[in-house]
């Protein structure tokens, strides 16, 4: 299969999973911009938690504009899903319209380990964001160091997640180091918990 088509299908799966997870936590619709931001945060935070593991969603390429990062494949997929009546889109956002039986087939990851890993990861990110609500995703995204760096450059180009200068990764590591410096035994704090603590801290700064 052509690589572009394969990536589009993977994106379709991801978006359907995100919409379904959103539905379970009470987000009936999700705005296209939020989908872009959720996937962006999923990609940018992955390296911090999974260390050197290759990024399982590296087929997303983001550039920045003032309303946040966006990826053209996500927008293509949103159009594809709507035209195939998997979803509907109105001013409140995107809603799943696909029948349950087909939905379950699409969500099934029992024979696809990578898909399963991706779903687990998206779930972690969605539950992290779910604590604050969909309307706060924008604030988290525009406060992301890598995004800030990219949007502030005179000529925003594709955001580079792989570089050793990855700003978000450096900030998260600095955040973790601060805990290790101040607390005697941090062995009980997992990487995911650092993420939660980080989001809590950023959120407390946003509402100030």
């Amino acid at each position: 299969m052509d690589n572009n088509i394969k990536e589009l299908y993977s994106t379709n799966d991801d978006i359907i999973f995100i919409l379904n997870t959103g539905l379970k936590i009470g987000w009936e619709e999700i705005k296209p911009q939020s989908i872009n931001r959720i996937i962006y945060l999923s990609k940018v935070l992955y390296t911090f938690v999974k260390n050197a593991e290759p990024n399982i969603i590296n087929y997303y390429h983001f550039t920045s504009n003032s309303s946040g990062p966006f990826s053209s494949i996500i927008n293509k997929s949103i159009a594809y899903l709507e035209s195939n009546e998997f979803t509907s889109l109105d001013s409140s956002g995107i809603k799943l319209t696909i029948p349950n039986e087909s939905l379950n087939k699409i969500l099934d990851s029992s024979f696809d380990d990578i898909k399963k890993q991706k779903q687990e990861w998206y779930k972690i990110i969605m539950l992290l964001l779910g604590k604050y609500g969909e309307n706060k995703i924008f604030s988290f995204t525009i406060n992301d160091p890598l995004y800030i760096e990219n949007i502030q450059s005179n000529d925003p180009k594709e955001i580079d997640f792989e570089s050793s200068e990855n700003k978000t990764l450096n900030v998260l590591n600095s955040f973790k180091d601060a805990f290790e410096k101040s607390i005697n035994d941090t062995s009980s704090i997992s990487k995911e918990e650092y993420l939660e603590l980080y989001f809590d801290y950023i959120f407390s700064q946003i509402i100030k």
Partner: protein
Amino acid sequence: MDFNFKNNPVFLNLIKDKEEQILARTNNEIQDSEGFKIIFAGLKSMLKNNAFSGFKAIIMSEEDIMKVKIEDIADFNNLFADEDFSYHNLITLNHKLFIIDKERRSFPSDSNEARAIFSEISQKGFVTFILIKKQINYFIKGVDNSESPFFSLTDINRYNKKRDINEINDVFVEYQESIKERRNYCKFFIELSHLKSLREDLQIPRDEEEKFIKAHKHLLRNKPEDTFRDDLRLFLTSHLRVFQVKEFLLENMRRLDIFLYDEFGEIYLIEVKWVGQSIHHLGKKLGTIYDSTNINPDAFFQTMDYLEELDNKGQNIVRAYLIVFDARQDDLDDTGLNFDSNILTESQTKHYRKFNKVKDFRVINYHAS
């Protein structure tokens, strides 16, 4: 935003101060579970979508919380649309989000009493979520993890009628007006019967009683600092959207009189002093006298020192107020008049911009009773 966390001393201190809370949270397997996060996120979005704006307690056994799976649970929208859910205010859910028990119970209107009840429920193995207006408070094993200090609609409605902290100066003026009313000022002064017996104790002739009463009706009760402080504290907390820390002790065990914080956790401190004369603690002779020299400059310095000490501890103090209750017999100038800021030390000067000397609160015993 400062992203250089590891070299930021304020941030490092913040972590150090909150070490216990942080570790309690990261060691809490319930709060860390997928089930808890799903339930919390679902309730949060329901509140945001205006599906609910009242008061409800939702409980789930710890066992059920740990069993919640995203693929198994019913829709939160259906739960909130359920008639039983709407009617009852204590709902027990299972791991699939089905109502397994329901009750319409009368909870105390006092938040502290209500909090104790929910804490107790959670100690019996039930994670307890309290939905109140747009906030979620929750208890796990008796530990309060609340977004809001309110546990009753009565309290939250009362609070919403209050004024914002930035109107504190207007509230001071209202307070000054309120203590001109007899029912308010009488609590500060000794009673008429006490004045009469004092005349006898001081062996003043009976025919001079009227003159004695007139000359001593401004006599304050013993320990007037406590009465003034408590009265002002009560007034402020019932008129401003603030919370109070009852007793805040500094390192040297000096006690701050009134220590308030607003909804963003920013702190306001108030030092309360008085001038005038109080009765001796045994009530049979005249007691302590304070005049303006006790205030200017000593009380100014004292308040500035508090500011410095709290600042060194990383507390974000927005403003410090020096309040003086003036119960002197005669109408005299404000006790803060002609304070010379040039005599402040360099480090006190740094804090002076956060300092306010409020116009004296004049207390007069117009009619001894």
